[in-house]
């Protein structure tokens, strides 16, 4: 961070607009990925991967949420979803929906959360 030149601070805006990274597309098979869906890298990454895509595969070596991937890459969630959709289409990541999506979690899990919060 300290090596960032002063004239390239956040106020100057990104050098490459986020949507240029995904060739101007705003839609992909990743559109509906839940923010807390878990992403894991699978398979061997090809050599010609873009730097952002390569970074996603690096941070997803251990299971990580979609929101966490966006934070790690410091890119808007929409842009990250497009990239994740592409990577999934190419069989480079697997995505599992959050266990709780659409339905409420079970009693045992909630009790565990309550105890866990108390112990914080």
């Amino acid at each position, binding site marked *: 961070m300290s090596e960032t030149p002063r004239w390239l601070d956040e106020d100057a805006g990104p050098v490459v607009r986020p949507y240029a990274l995904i060739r101007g597309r705003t839609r992909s098979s990743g559109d509906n990925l839940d923010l807390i869906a*878990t992403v894991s890298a699978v398979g061997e990454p090809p050599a010609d991967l873009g730097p952002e895509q390569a970074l996603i595969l690096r941070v997803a070596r251990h299971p990580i949420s979609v929101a966490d991937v966006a934070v790690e890459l410091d890119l808007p969630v929409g842009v990250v979803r497009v990239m994740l959709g592409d990577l999934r289409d190419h069989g480079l990541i697997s995505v599992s929906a959050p266990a709780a999506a659409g339905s409420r979690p079970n009693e045992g*899990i909630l009790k565990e959360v309550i105890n*866990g919060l108390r112990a914080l």
Partner: protein
Amino acid sequence: MDSVLSEDPVALKILIAGGFGVGKTTLVGSISEIKPLRTEEVLSDRGIGVDDLDGVEAKTTTTVAMDFGRITIREGLVVYLFGTPGQERFWFMWDELSYGALGAVVIADTRRLTDCFPSVDYFEQRGTPFVVAVNCFDGADQHSVDDVRIALDLDDGVPVMLCDVRRRASAKEVMITLVEHSLRTLTAAG
């Protein structure tokens, strides 16, 4: 379909809502590691006159930062917190966030109580379990809690509590109250 492995982590979502400057960011930061999550807002008619669009007619989205926090209960069980902007123009984000959410905390400031009306309405309509946490600005007391319950016309079952979002212990108590409330709601629903 993605195969669901038994060791798949369980992830839960809790929303932190309330008016501008009411303490959402502080609450998330008190109890978890907090990071800014960038998301996009579609510029609607509401933005006209606020956002100067001259010369950038092609620009239809702008970036909004959400507060994003993570509490690891144990390996494979994580609670994610999302602090969402309270204004109606951000409701497109809420629809996504509230889907499958464990519940929500609505932070209230007794000096600007109307600011949390939209949040309360929203969660009541969605059937999302929520608690109202009255942030202790300006010496709010138990009397304030009763006033808030009446002013917001809350169901008896909805917990209303005082809190000081800067204090970790208080933030913890709010979260525990919410999860207990969600658990009761779940049990009652059978």
